[in-house]
């Protein structure tokens, strides 16, 4: 028996809606027309899209309008005469208000209103994902927002998430590989799941989009490990189209996103047209990427043990020629990016059109990323109560990658696996690249002849209708679609290795995501308090069809699945959710704001017995400085502004599979005939979402005439019912089942300190310091299991009860009673070999071989102790300078690159052995050291000079001679320098890409390059 039936629920919503219309209001009214304009307080430039609303007291349901492209507004209001407040606000900017007295005159001149950007931005309007925009000061939870300028001006950021690095406190944004096309993973206030998706939900203009990171081809980690791709789908969205990004970091803020918001939500709003004459902007950008970081390779011209292992004909100690081909593998890559947009509109229509093309080379030869797309957004006012709009985007991207990481096919992997006597140069006599003498491939062959490509075609679109049947009632319907196709190709040609007959994979994934939202917003007032009531419904549908085709025994030159030995497979996943929410916001005296909401949601992925889930939220905000008497009170001596806030909310996380609530049958063969048997996975009819409860509290304070502001938040997030796959009792009739068993908690603080250091004509200097600390802990797994390895296979990342998720649990040093490492084989020059710690040593200590095992302990933690970033912005007579430092502290990295280069004899240390630096066998082919995880744990703390930018805008008369009204010139760099003690190439990368648990693993992963950018933009 289902708790709710969709239609009944629908009926209830309509009734609620109608009931909300009931309050009647009475007054003797008169028609007024208010006109005026709004400008930027600093620059004096007219501001478009500023909301203008007439309010009386705390009533927030008065008539409203927006400014046009020239900053002008005309507000028509039929109200009773009296004293009103005219409020001005713009999403992403501060607010202002004017008092107007409406009397006999129908035409009212308001004049010029200045809108400032304050450091605290309490009046900044944010959207929060639920109907009506709201001023930040009215919210009890934190919503981080980043403006489109900050994103489009982030130098060299190919993707939105790269552009967000260092700009949001509590968002750990990691670029997993230096290959082009993204591969970024985002953790908002820590990791909350083990098997589920730890990446936040991405919403573009209210439409939930597909952001799967599941790899179609295994380029970083082996495909059998359930791995994540080197690219991510957020890279499809051109950053230039973005007007602003809002980040909801946890359940307290994201409760209305219900069952998928456990990892937080990133809301992206794209640019729109503005009333006024056509605005044409063109932006062109040239970029160069390179890296000066190189692997340390053995250049000692003497044969070592690693060389002999590869070629037994070589004799230890003989002289031999060495090669280092890295300068032929890395390069300076160049790229261009061009964007053109046209926007404008009149009273009834507004439009925005843009086109974009970029083509950027990667820092490794054979890698590049190109993207093209176009977008059109159109809004039409149909009548005085109805507006319809559409926003459609078509995108194509193509990424050429090379394998890396644990793949023996990887370029850097092949370099460290191969003794450096090997010369991979093309052999003109054989007409081919020589075979790698040992594990791995010929890097030049990979560059020249292999294909590892991802191509994405994507259509994003929505249609929207907004009705305002009453001035205080807004009903919005939004239908959105994300329909994308990803085609990958991975070709390893015939002859890439000895006796290798070639292999090609051409998987295709089609993902379609649909959502349909209805929201009604009603504003009223009761007993002098402002009430904003929101009722909404959301239906979503997702379908992913993955077809994998592969072939082996290829003909030379073959690139598609033809002839040869062919294999194909297919998988379809469909999921639906249906939900409704209701929210009430209460405004008491314009200084105390309370919000309460309930979200009821059902998902096809939940068990039939737990189909409907309720997610509540409640929050409060108290603007203390608006309290009567504050200005004369003791606090005002220290502070100019103060707000206290607290919020509580619950969200869910979808189970890690769409069909874990049912038994399916699989094929078996008996007697040469097809048969069926039940799958070994027990269906869970009570499967619930992973449920997160978060509360947060904090304050916003400003001092020194608002020139210094501090935002502080503490949060406590506990995610229960974390789904794990449990081995079941054999008598259950099944092998395993997914159950809601685990608990993960994240607790931390976020701090944002903004200062206006200097503010005078011709020179300003602002600083922003962000600090975030998160403590993650796996509080509960399940009985009989304290340690789970992900992904296993010798990698030490583990989920251990009582520890942060993903800690390194590995083989440790044998130490003496004093804790010193016990070394063996001390050589003439001090060489020594550490030993693995065993439970016992045969034959003396252990009765049986099985009793001797390596002792594993927690040896490191890839989660940072804290993150911090420092942004300094200068403005000197029109010259804008920005410097962003982004740091991560206290995180460990497993340096598997060093491990393998020592073991295979390609490192300088292995070379040193051959000339007596240490005893032979200390590094090269030392299986003992190779298996000693503790040896490879390093401090991965770093500070990166993330962004440096110099910009100047020309608006002198000469600009008009080229037809433009304004020209902007920018010179910028990204990741210019890294300060770290890490011995590898880059402490930020991760071999397992966006993997939830396996983090902090560097294994021949491409370092993140420096990017230099020169850009020009023209406004016509």
């Amino acid at each position, binding site marked *: 028996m289902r708790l709710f039936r*969709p*239609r009944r629920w629908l009926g209830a*919503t*309509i009734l609620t809606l*109608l009931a909300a*219309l009931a309050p*009647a209001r*009475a007054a003797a*009214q008169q028609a007024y027309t208010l006109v005026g304009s709004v400008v930027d307080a600093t620059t004096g430039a007219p501001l478009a899209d500023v909301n203008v609303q007439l309010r009386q007291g705390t009533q927030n349901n008065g008539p409203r309008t927006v400014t046009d492209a020239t900053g002008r507004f005309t507000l028509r209001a039929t109200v009773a005469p009296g004293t009103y407040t005219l409020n001005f606000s713009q999403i992403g900017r501060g607010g202002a208000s004017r008092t107007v007295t409406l009397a006999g005159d129908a035409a009212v001149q308001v004049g010029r209103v200045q809108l400032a950007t304050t450091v605290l931005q309490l009046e900044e309007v944010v959207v929060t994902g639920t109907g009506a925009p709201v001023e930040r000061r009215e919210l009890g939870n934190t919503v981080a927002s980043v403006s489109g300028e900050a994103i489009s001006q982030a130098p060299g950021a190919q993707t939105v998430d790269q552009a967000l690095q260092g700009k949001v406190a509590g968002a750990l944004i990691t670029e997993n590989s230096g290959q082009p096309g993204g591969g970024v993973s985002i953790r908002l206030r820590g990791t909350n799941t083990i098997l589920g998706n730890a990446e936040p939900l991405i919403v573009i203009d209210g439409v939930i989009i597909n952001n799967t990171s599941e790899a179609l081809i295994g380029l970083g980690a082996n495909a059998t490990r359930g791995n994540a791709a080197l690219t991510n789908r957020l890279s499809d969205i051109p950053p230039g189209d973005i007007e602003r990004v809002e980040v909801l970091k946890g359940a307290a803020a994201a409760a209305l996103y219900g069952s998928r918001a456990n990892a937080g939500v990133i809301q992206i709003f794209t640019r729109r047209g503005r009333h006024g004459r056509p605005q044409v902007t063109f932006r062109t950008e040239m970029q160069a990427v390179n890296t000066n970081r190189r692997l340390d390779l053995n250049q000692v011209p003497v044969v070592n043990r690693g060389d002999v292992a590869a070629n037994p004909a070589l004799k230890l100690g003989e002289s031999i020629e060495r090669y280092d081909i890295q300068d032929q593998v890395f390069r300076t890559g160049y790229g261009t990016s061009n964007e053109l947009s046209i926007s404008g509109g009149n009273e009834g229509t507004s439009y925005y059109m843009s086109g974009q093309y970029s083509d950027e080379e990667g820092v490794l030869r054979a890698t590049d990323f190109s993207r093209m797309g176009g977008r059109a957004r159109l809004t039409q006012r149909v009548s005085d109560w*109805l507006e319809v709009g559409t926003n459609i985007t078509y995108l194509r991207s193509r990424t050429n990658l090379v394998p890396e990481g644990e793949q023996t096919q990887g370029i850097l992997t092949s370099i460290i696996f191969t003794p450096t006597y090997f010369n991979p140069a093309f052999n003109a006599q054989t007409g081919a690249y020589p075979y790698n003498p040992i594990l791995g491939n010929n890097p030049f062959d990979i560059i020249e002849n292999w294909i590892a490509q991802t191509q994405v075609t994507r259509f994003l679109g929505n249609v929207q*209708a907004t*009705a305002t*049947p009453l001035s205080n009632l807004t*009903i919005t*319907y939004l*239908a959105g679609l994300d329909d994308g196709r990803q085609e990958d190709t991975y070709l390893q040609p015939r002859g890439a290795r000895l006796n290798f007959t070639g292999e090609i994979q051409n998987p295709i994934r089609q993902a379609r995501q*649909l959502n*349909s939202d*209805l929201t*009604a917003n009603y504003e009223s007032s009761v007993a002098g308090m402002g009430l904003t009531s929101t009722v909404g*419904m959301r*239906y979503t*549908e997702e379908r992913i069809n993955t077809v994998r085709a592969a072939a082996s025994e290829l003909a030379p030159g073959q690139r598609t699945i033809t002839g040869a030995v062919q294999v194909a497979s*297919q998988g*379809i996943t*469909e*999921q*639906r*959710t*249906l939900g409704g929410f209701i929210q009430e916001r209460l405004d008491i005296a314009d200084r105390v704001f309370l919000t309460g909401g309930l979200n009821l949601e*059902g*998902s*096809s992925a939940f068990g*039939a017995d737990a189909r409907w889930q309720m997610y509540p939220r409640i929050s409060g905000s108290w603007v203390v400085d608006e309290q009567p008497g504050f200005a004369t009170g003791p606090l005002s001596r220290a502070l100019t502004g103060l707000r206290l806030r607290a919020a509580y909310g619950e969200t869910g996380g979808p189970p890690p599979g*769409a069909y874990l609530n049912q038994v*399916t*049958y699989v094929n*078996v063969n*008996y*007697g*040469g*005939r*097809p*048969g*069926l*048997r*039940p*799958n*070994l996975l027990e269906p869970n009819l009570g499967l619930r979402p992973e449920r997160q409860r978060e509360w947060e509290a904090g304050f916003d304070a400003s001092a020194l005439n608002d020139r210094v502001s501090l935002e502080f938040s503490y949060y406590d997030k506990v995610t229960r019912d974390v789904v794990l796959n449990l*081995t079941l*009792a*054999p*008598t*259950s*009739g*099944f*092998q395993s089942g997914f159950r809601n068993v685990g608990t993960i908690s994240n607790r931390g603080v976020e701090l944002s300190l903004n200062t206006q250091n200097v503010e005078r004509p011709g020179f300003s200097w602002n600083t922003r310091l962000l600090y975030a600390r998160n403590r993650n802990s796996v509080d509960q797994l399940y009985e*009989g299991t304290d340690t789970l390895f992900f992904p296993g296979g010798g990698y030490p990342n583990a989920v251990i009860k009582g520890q942060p998720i993903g800690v390194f649990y590995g083989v440790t040093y044998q130490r003496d009673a004093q804790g010193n490492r016990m070394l063996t084989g001390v050589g003439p020059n001090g060489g020594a070999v550490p030993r693995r710690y065993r439970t016992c040593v045969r034959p003396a200590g252990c009765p*049986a071989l*099985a009793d001797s095992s390596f002792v594993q302990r927690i040896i490191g933690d890839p989660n940072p102790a804290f993150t911090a970033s420092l942004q300094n912005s200068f403005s000197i007579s029109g010259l804008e300078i920005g410097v962003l430092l982004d740091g991560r502290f206290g995180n460990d990295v497993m340096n598997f690159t060093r491990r393998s280069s020592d073991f295979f004899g390609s490192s300088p240390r292995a070379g040193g052995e051959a000339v007596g630096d240490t005893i032979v066998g200390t590094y090269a082919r030392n299986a003992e050291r190779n298996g000693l995880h503790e040896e490879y744990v390093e401090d991965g703390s770093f500070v990166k000079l993330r962004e440096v930018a110099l910009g100047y805008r020309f608006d002198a008369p000469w600009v008009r001679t080229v037809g433009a009204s304004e020209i902007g010139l920018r010179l910028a760099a990204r990741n210019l320098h890294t300060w770290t003690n890490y011995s590898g190439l880059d402490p930020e990368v991760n071999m397992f890409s966006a993997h939830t648990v396996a983090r902090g693993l560097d294994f021949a992963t491409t370092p993140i390059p420096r990017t230099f950018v020169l850009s020009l933009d023209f406004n016509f």
Partner: protein
Amino acid sequence: MTNRFLSTRLASRAMRTAVFAALALGAGACSLDLTDPNAPAEEEVLNSPQLVLTTAVGIQAQYADNLHLFVRAPALVTDEWSTKPLALEADRSLVTGNVDYSYGVVSGPFEAAYRLARTADVLIEAAPRVGLSSGTQAGTVALAHTLKAMAIGHLTTQYRDLPADYDPDGAVMLPREQVRDTVIALLELARATLANVPADSLSQFNTTVLQTNGLNLPNTINAMLARYYLFDGQHQQAIDAANRVPQNSLSQFLYPNPSFNPVWNYGLTLNYVGTRREFFVEARDGDTRPAYWATRTSGLAGIPDSAFAFRRYGNRNDPFPAYLPDEMRLIRAEALVRLGNLPAARDLVNAVRTQCSSSVDEPLACQPALAVTALDTEAELMAEILYQRRYELYAQGVRWEDLRRLAAYTTEKATIEFLPTPRDECIRNPNAGC
């Protein structure tokens, strides 16, 4: 005084908007009950005659492909198999008796049997309601009961306490003697099901589901009844059941490609196990049965626990018998001894000893009959029956139970008494009681 809400124009607008939007939303709203499109759901199987019969084919694979799990422990804890150098630590532990409850050798039989039991229940529930002919329906139900009984029957010889059936909510452990009664009951049910329909109504089921040369259902049911009545000490019932099995019949599990015989795989592909050297050394002179079962390789001789390659399952497609014909003679002989009819028992033992040819593939002793004086006491007969069972029923999964039942007549001991309750059972089943 103007009441906005009552303004008909506005009200109709509001209504229009709400209804329009609700319709738009309602059109999209669909059921949240989605089924996995990648494979048939159980619901579908339960309602389709074709899928029920396909599952009836599949349940045989569930038994046949897991046979090595049922015969492994009885062979390794006794003198039948030994481990090869590549063997798993778990296999070795059965030979040494140092077995850990977390090992797969402990959980394997449980897993195979109770998963099969669940499938059997699906078939038993579904077969009568999908419109199958009475013969096909009876065959399906009888097959499900039989395989379930055979799988759980094996467990009753390997665990002291075990559940009589699968139960996802926590199966209750019962003494194995009690579970054996359930096994017998299932087999009797299967026999009764078949007895209710004319034999020729089963012909379609036999050829399409059981397949030619595959399982002979009535004979297998009777053979298993004979086996478990004997184990249960119900000797007359054991004799009656054995008598119902024709002497030259064979009932077996088939492994045409792409399937393979799992015992062949375990011994010859994975190279984990082989025939223990003592199986040859302790055979009587002239007994050719060891060479029927395995190939004695001279190179390995001399090592005490050498494991020789299987011959009977020397190829991947070799079938595995559900029972061997001479098991019926030996069951009758043993039951007759227990009932005090020694001469009749002696005749049966000698019939086994002297058999030199057969129309089916079975081990042949081809030895002279023993004199009356050599088989005129209960002890002599039982010792001889035990010997004959060892060489006739090699690695059929009964040796462990034989050594237990006939312990009084041999010095041979299994390395462990029973398998422990598997670790996952202990942890996950609140009723496991361990």
